[in-house]
Structures are given as structure tokens and as C-alpha cells.
């Protein structure tokens, strides 16, 4: 796996170093399409996480899911995990619709088998797996329709830019692509499969699914919009609006969660929303002929694809380490782990600051590009720039969300005995996290390293007429470096000053003051749920939280419990009831299916005759 990853990264580097697009196209055994693969800067951007994250995940998995500890499913996980990584690379380089769909389907199924490795032991895993399987195939269905339309319009499955296309057909292809790819990426309201599947999968699989596989949906949207002719402004508007809703609702749901991996999954939805906002800005810029908006929007979105794959994998690895140590996913049962797992605590803090898009880490660099783009759109009307306010709200909510996780899991006192035997995991689990954290810092402080690739990817996405603007000219990334370095320098100086100062002072230690209360217990601490309660209340109109109040009667009330949950409004209130309804009425159709081959052949004959007659009448 590691060798494959290194080879892949080197390959991407050399193919881009050559300058021209590398491609290969040979006919194959299937009646449709060709085996056509190619790599351009756009594909290269998405290939980098495909080659990095799964490799780190496999190293992490050595400790997290070791073969001797999981004799039943270790082999199944290994095979499907490798297939998942390989098929994602094929999805990105495929230059033919049929090949793309095959790779896409292999990816979807491999992800299913990897995510449900524990299905024999756990019913939740099974259920999440089914939801995923159904959702992903609904998406694939849209993609089938999209590629069929593409073929009938352009005459082949080849994924080459279509120069002329009627606007209705192009619009239909865009919408089908948005639904099909949006299902995989987790755009709301198509995200239903995502929280369950991410929460129940082994942590390194969650990291790959969230950090890389969701980006395949993004890649699909990027690629299909690159191939379509320049569309009307509503494409960009729709994507921007969907992105803003996805972002705000995603992070609001995240705040309401008690399960650390579900929370991270919802935060992935939020980040996909942010990426979609960047793409929407780029599409709007393309429709309006504004090269600066295209460049800033697309560069911001693509850089955020990298960034999210870095910090989200880091956080999922970290969550895995926590679960390994405490054997629970309930955050409100944790607490005080920073003392027992200092390495993990520091790494989590890095990931949390990065995911909140705070300087000087990488999330800020990509969001900053989008912000500059959104503010620049002010020069032609102000509607688009409103998205900057949505982005700011997402940022503030993300800070609330991740302070909640950091505080509940790592800080304070242990809330239960779950963390009694917690300790930092072995080096093979810490190592990948350290690599990812260093990546976050590197991209955060030196974002201009990525600028040439992003500019070339923008060039691939849309031929900008006239001279290519440089990102540096629109948004001076070198200042991000200057500010990042001065921040690090000042912090270093402050830490040094603190060290000198604390040497000459008497430092007493005692219990937390707690306003004079002498006997505080760990259970009196603010829990994650109470921390987020006001915000959940403010967003009750989209979250619909459920609270189960205890019944308190009499002077000496009986022992009782309070419980609050934030179920997924779309899945639990819309999709599941709808499927229940279908399940109730559609079984009547089963009378058609009684297992006799002769009857089935009769059906076929009848349908062929009907079609034949229909064709005859039509002619």
C-alpha cells in the first residue's frame, strides 16, 4: 500500500512536470466506451489525497485493526480497503463514461464492504450499511441517466469537452450530475447515508471515506462542469445556495451530536458545503465572464479539498485512538483525556484549529481565498457576497462545535471510568497523525506552494481568455505566510517569556476553585450537550431536537433520567417513514414473483410483444 502511494505521488509529479496532458486510450472488450485514462492538473489535485490518506490509514490500521485481533473480518477489510483506494484513483483518471461508471461502482461497493466490516457483530453497522447502499445507488442511477444523456448528445462516452449543447440538455445534465455526485459528496438533503456510515465504520475507513471518497463527488461535479459548455448563472447560484445551506445545517447538526464520529461526519457535510460554495462562486464567475471569481472560487474549493482531507483524516484517526482507549463513542462519558493521552490531545487541538479555519493553519488559507473572491464579487452586485456572511456563521459555529469536543473529551475531569486505562496509542497510530498535522501546518503557513498547481487546474477547468491571472495578484498569499510566521514567532517568544517568568514565581496547585464549592464532582462539569444546548435551541427550526424530560413527582422524587437527541431530520423524519410506507404497500407486487422460470419467461415475451406493438403504432 505504502509503495503504491509513493509510486502514485511520484507519478503525479512526473506527469505534471512534463507539462502536457498524459493520456492513454485503448479499445476494450465491452461493447461501449474505451479504456481511456488521462491525467491533467485537475485530476492531479484530487489524486494527491487519494495517494496520501489511504496509505497513512493503512499504517494506522496496523495498530487499530490488527489482523490477530480481528481474525473474522481483517482480511475482508484489507481487500475492500485496497480496492477502495485503487478504484478512487481510477475514478479520477478515467476519461470515458463507461469506465468512470465501472470505477465508481467498484468504489461504492468497496466502501460498503470496508465500512460494514463489523456487520456480523453489530446491528447498527448493518443498518448504516444498508442506508449507504441504497443512497449510493440512487446516486448512481442519476449518473447512469446523465451519462446516457451525454452519449446521446455527444455521440460517445468519451469525457471530452462538449463545445455546443442546447441549454436545456446541458441544464438537465448539470442537475442530474449535481444529484448523483451530490449524493456521494453529502450535499444536503442527500447526505442521509453519511453520518451513520461514517460513525459505524472502522476509524481509518471513516477517515478515507470522509477525507477522500466524499471528494470524488466533488470531483464529479468539477469534471462535469468543466466538460459542459458555459452555463447560465443559475448553476452557480444553485450550487452556492446549496453549499451555504449544507454548511450551516451540517455544522448545526454536528453541535447536537453526542457520538464523536457522528459529529465528525456532520462536520464533513459542513466542509463539503464550503467546497460547494467555492465551486458555486467559480461557476457564477464563469457565467459572468469574471476570471478573478473563477480563479479564487475554484482555487479555494480545490485547496479546501486538500485541507479537508488532511484535517478530517487527522480527526478521524484521533477519534479512533479515543475509542480504542475508552471503548465508547459517547463524548459525555469522556473527559480529562489530555492528561492520559497528551500526544493525542495536542494533535486533536491542531486538527480542531485547522477545521475551524483559524489562522495560521490550512483551513484558513482556503477559506480566505473564497472570502476574497466573495468580497470581490461586490463590484458587480451584492447578492453573491451574502455568502460571505454564511461562511462567517459557519466559522463561528465550527469554533463552538470543536471547542465543545476538545473540552468534553480531552479537558476537565473524567466523567466516567471509561477513560481509566486510556493511554497514548502505539507509534504506528501516532505517526500518521503527526504527518497529517505537519501537513496542516505546512499548507497553512506556505499556501503559495500549492498556487501553481491550482492555477493550472483552473486553466484545465475553463480556458480563461486573455492572460492567466495569478492567485498572488488577486489574493497575496505571501502575506498569509508573513502573518503565519509572525504568529508562530510571537507565540514562541511568549512561551519563552512564560518559561522565564514561571521559573521565578511560586506556582501553587490546588483543586479548581469552583466558586467556593469545596466538594465538586466530575459529574457537575458542563457536558458537551449542555455546552451546545443554547445553540441547538437557536437552530431548533432545522434540527428539531427531541428531549425526554424526567417525570419529577412528590417531595422525594424517584430516580429518573433526562435524555436529549438530535436525530437527522431528513433521514429519520422523511426518508425512513417514506420507505416504511413503501414497504407496507409494495409487497402486494410480490404476487408477480413466485419463483417459476417459465412464468418469468412469459413476462419477458409479453413485454417484448407490448414493446413491439408500441413501436408499430408509433411508426
Amino acid at each position: 500500500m505504502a509503495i503504491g502511494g509513493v509510486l502514485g505521488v511520484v507519478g503525479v509529479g512526473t506527469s505534471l512536470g512534463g507539462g502536457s496532458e498524459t493520456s492513454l486510450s485503448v479499445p476494450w472488450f465491452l461493447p461501449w466506451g474505451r479504456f481511456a485514462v488521462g491525467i491533467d492538473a485537475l485530476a492531479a489535485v484530487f489524486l494527491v489525497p487519494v495517494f496520501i490518506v489511504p496509505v497513512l490509514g493503512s499504517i494506522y490500521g496496523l495498530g487499530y485493526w490488527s489482523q490477530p485481533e480481528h481474525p473474522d473480518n481483517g482480511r475482508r477489510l484489507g481487500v475492500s480497503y485496497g480496492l477502495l483506494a485503487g478504484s478512487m484513483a481510477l475514478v479520477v483518471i478515467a476519461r470515458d463514461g463507461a469506465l468512470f461508471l465501472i470505477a465508481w461502482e467498484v468504489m461504492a461497493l468497496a466502501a460498503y464492504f470496508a465500512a460494514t466490516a463489523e456487520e456480523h457483530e453489530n446491528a447498527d453497522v448493518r443498518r448504516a450499511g444498508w442506508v449507504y447502499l441504497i443512497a449510493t445507488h440512487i446516486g448512481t442511477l442519476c449518473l447512469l441517466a446523465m451519462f446516457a444523456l451525454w452519449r446521446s448528445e455527444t455521440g460517445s462516452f468519451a469525457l471530452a469537452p462538449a463545445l455546443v449543447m442546447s441549454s436545456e440538455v446541458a441544464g438537465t445534465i448539470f442537475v442530474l450530475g449535481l444529484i448523483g455526485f451530490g449524493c456521494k459528496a453529502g450535499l444536503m438533503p442527500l447526505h442521509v447515508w453519511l453520518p451513520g456510515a461514517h460513525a459505524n465504520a472502522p476509524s481509518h475507513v471513516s477517515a478515507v471515506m470522509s477525507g477522500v471518497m466524499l471528494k470524488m463527488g466533488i470531483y464529479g461535479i468539477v469534471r462535469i462542469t468543466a466538460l459542459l459548455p458555459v452555463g447560465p448563472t443559475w448553476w452557480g447560484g444553485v450550487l452556492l445556495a446549496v453549499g451555504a445551506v449544507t454548511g450551516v445545517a451540517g455544522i448545526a447538526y454536528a453541535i447536537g451530536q453526542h457520538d464523536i464520529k457522528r459529529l465528525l461526519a456532520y462536520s464533513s457535510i459542513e466542509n463539503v458545503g464550503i467546497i460547494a460554495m467555492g465551486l458555486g462562486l467559480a461557476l457564477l464567475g464563469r457565467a459572468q465572464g469574471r476570471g478573478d471569481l473563477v480563479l479564487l472560487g475554484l482555487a479555494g474549493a480545490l485547496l479546501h479539498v486538500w485541507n479537508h482531507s488532511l484535517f478530517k483524516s487527522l480527526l478521524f484517526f484521533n477519534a479512533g485512538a479515543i475509542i480504542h482507549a475508552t471503548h465508547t463513542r459517547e463524548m459525555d462519558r469522556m473527559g480529562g483525556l489530555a492528561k492520559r493521552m497528551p500526544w493525542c490531545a495536542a494533535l486533536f487541538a491542531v486538527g480542531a484549529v485547522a477545521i475551524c479555519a483559524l489562522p495560521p493553519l490550512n483551513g484558513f488559507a482556503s477559506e480566505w481565498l473564497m472570502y476574497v473572491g466573495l468580497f470581490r464579487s461586490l463590484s458587480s452586485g451584492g447578492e453573491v457576497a451574502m455568502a460571505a456572511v454564511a461562511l462567517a456563521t459557519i466559522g463561528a459555529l465550527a469554533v463552538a462545535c470543536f471547542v465543545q469536543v476538545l473540552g468534553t473529551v480531552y479537558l476537565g475531569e473524567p466523567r466516567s471510568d471509561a477513560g481509566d486505562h486510556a493511554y497514548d496509542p502505539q507509534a504506528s497510530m501516532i505517526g500518521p497523525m503527526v504527518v497529517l498535522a505537519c501537513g496542516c501546518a505546512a499548507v497553512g503557513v506556505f499556501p503559495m506552494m500549492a498556487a501553481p498547481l491550482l492555477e493550472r487546474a483552473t486553466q484545465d477547468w475553463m480556458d480563461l481568455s486573455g492572460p492567466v491571472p495569478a492567485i498572488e495578484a488577486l489574493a497575496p498569499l505571501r502575506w498569509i505566510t508573513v502573518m503565519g510566521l509572525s504568529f508562530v514567532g510571537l507565540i514562541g517568544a511568549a512561551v519563552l517569556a512564560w518559561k522565564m517568568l514561571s521559573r521565578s514565581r511560586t506556582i501553587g496547585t490546588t483543586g479548581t476553585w469552583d466558586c467556593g464549592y469545596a466538594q465538586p464532582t466530575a459529574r457537575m462539569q458542563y457536558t458537551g450537550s449542555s455546552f451546545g444546548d443554547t445553540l441547538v435551541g437557536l437552530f431548533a427550526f432545522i434540527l428539531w431536537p427531541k428531549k425526554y424530560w424526567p417525570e419529577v413527582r412528590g417531595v422525594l422524587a424517584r430516580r429518573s433520567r433526562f435524555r436529549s437527541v438530535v436525530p437527522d431530520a431528513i433521514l429519520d423524519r422523511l426518508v425512513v417513514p417514506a420507505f416504511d410506507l413503501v414497504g407496507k404497500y409494495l409487497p402486494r407486487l410480490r404476487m408477480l414473483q413466485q419463483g417459476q422460470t417459465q412464468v418469468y419467461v412469459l413476462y419477458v415475451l409479453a413485454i417484448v410483444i407490448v414493446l413491439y406493438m408500441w413501436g408499430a403504432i408509433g411508426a
Partner: protein
Amino acid sequence: MLERLIYIALLLIMPPLLLGIINRTKARFAGRTGQPLFQLYYDLAKLMRKGLVLSNTTTWVFIAGPVVTLVTVVLAGLLVPAGPFASPISFTGDLILFAYLFGLARFFTTAAALDTGSAFEGMGSAREVTFACLSEPAMFFALLVLAKVSGTLTLSEMLHGPAGGFPASAVAPLVFIAIGLFVVLLAETCRIPVDDPNTHLELTMIHEVMVLDHSGPLLGVILYAASLKMFVLGAVLLHVIVPIQTGMAWADWALFVIEMGALAVAIGVVESVMARLQMRHVPYLLVAAMLLCGFGFILVVR
């Protein structure tokens, strides 16, 4: 160069005076003589000499809170221009960094509060992050208005307005965002009616309750950083309220210092004549600020 040095000196030295002025104003309203104007300087000097007590529960995050806050607020201060002078650091898109530096400070302040494991401090940090979710959109609407009116993306040029001053059509939106920004300033610096810095009831506080366990030099750093934050946000607000300049450098510096003092008096007056809002009513005030800034934005793009 000289301007930058003067500004950095003012930025680092003047902030504690603002709290002295506010306290003096409040004392006058209450018919008392009040503390000396330079009380906070004395307090800081005393705190920096003291030892400190740490809770057994805390980790490095507890110390990172004040340290990171101080560094971020100083960096944010370097992005803001004083009077007609350019800010020490200015580049396209620095306004985003300005807003996000405060986010970074908030992250570590609230995390440090949770590090103590006390329910009171948990409450404080929960309130802080919750209210920030409402003041952040207000802040960004205000920044959008300023960017639209001035047509630039650097904080320095934005606050100075276009050459020849703000156009007449921008007056109404600027008034709207000035009120909105004032509310944000009160909320972010934890003044009445959002928070009461002098209260002794831990249940009702936001900022003070988050720093209950910090003592000695750490508390000094926190108090100093809080006053710096007020200075920085105040400098932004002053550009919107009084875009006046004399053209003579020394007079402009004097004017800036006087304006800043007047702002502190205004905050003192607000604190004296108003009662603190009930905690559950604070979101309404912040939403009102957001609406004002939002309407300001709509006025400017219509």
C-alpha cells in the same frame, strides 16, 4: 515609519487607560469619586509580580488561553489604521484575517475555561461561543458594507473610505453599521448590557466567569488583552463614526486619542444608564445588531 512606531506604542500603552476612563465615568454617574484613572496599570504591575495558583485539573491549554489571546489581539491591532494613518500591516483580504484572529482567541479562551472542569466556567464559555455565532454575521455584514462603499479589500483603505470621503448615499448604511458595530463592541468586550464586568454572581457572567481560575501573571495578561481588544475594536468603530481628519499629523494623533477617550466615556455612559439584560435576552440584542448591519448592506447594494 514614525507613524507606525507611534501607533504601535499607542496600541501597547493606551488600552488600560480606556478602562480607567470607563470606571471613572461610571463612578461619576453613581456620585462617587472612583478609582484613579491609571488603576489598571497599577493592577497589571502588581499581578505581573505575583506568583500563581494552578488547578490540578488543568493542562497546557489553560496557559495557552491567555497567551494566544494576547498574541492574536496584538496582531489584529496591527491591521487596524489609527486616524488617517495607514496601519502597520495592510494587504488585500486582511479584513478576513482580522475577524478570524478574534476567532482564534475565542477558541483558546473558551478551551482554557473548559480546562478547569468547572461548571461555571463551562457556562461562560458556552455563552461566549454562542453569542459569537450571532455577532460574527453582524461583523461580516458591516465589513461587506465598508468594502462595497470604499471599493477596496484592505482594512486600512476600507476604513479610510474612498478619496474625498464617504459619499452621501452611504450615510444611512454607515449609521446602521455604526450602531451594529457598537453593539458588537459591547458584546465582544463584555460590557453592560451583554455582560457585567463587576458582577459577583458567577452564574450571570460571560467573560469574567471564564477566567475565574486564572491568577497572577496569567490574569494580568487576560486583563491587558481584554483592554487591547477594546482598543482595537474601538479604533475600527471610530473610523465609521467620525471620519474626520485635520491634515496635520500631530493634530490627528491628538484627535485620535481624544476620540478614543470619548468612546470610552460613551461606553461608560451606556453602562451607567442601562441594566444588564437577562441572559436569554442577549441573543435578541445581537440579532438586532445583525439585522441593522444586514439592512445597511441591503441599502448599499440596492
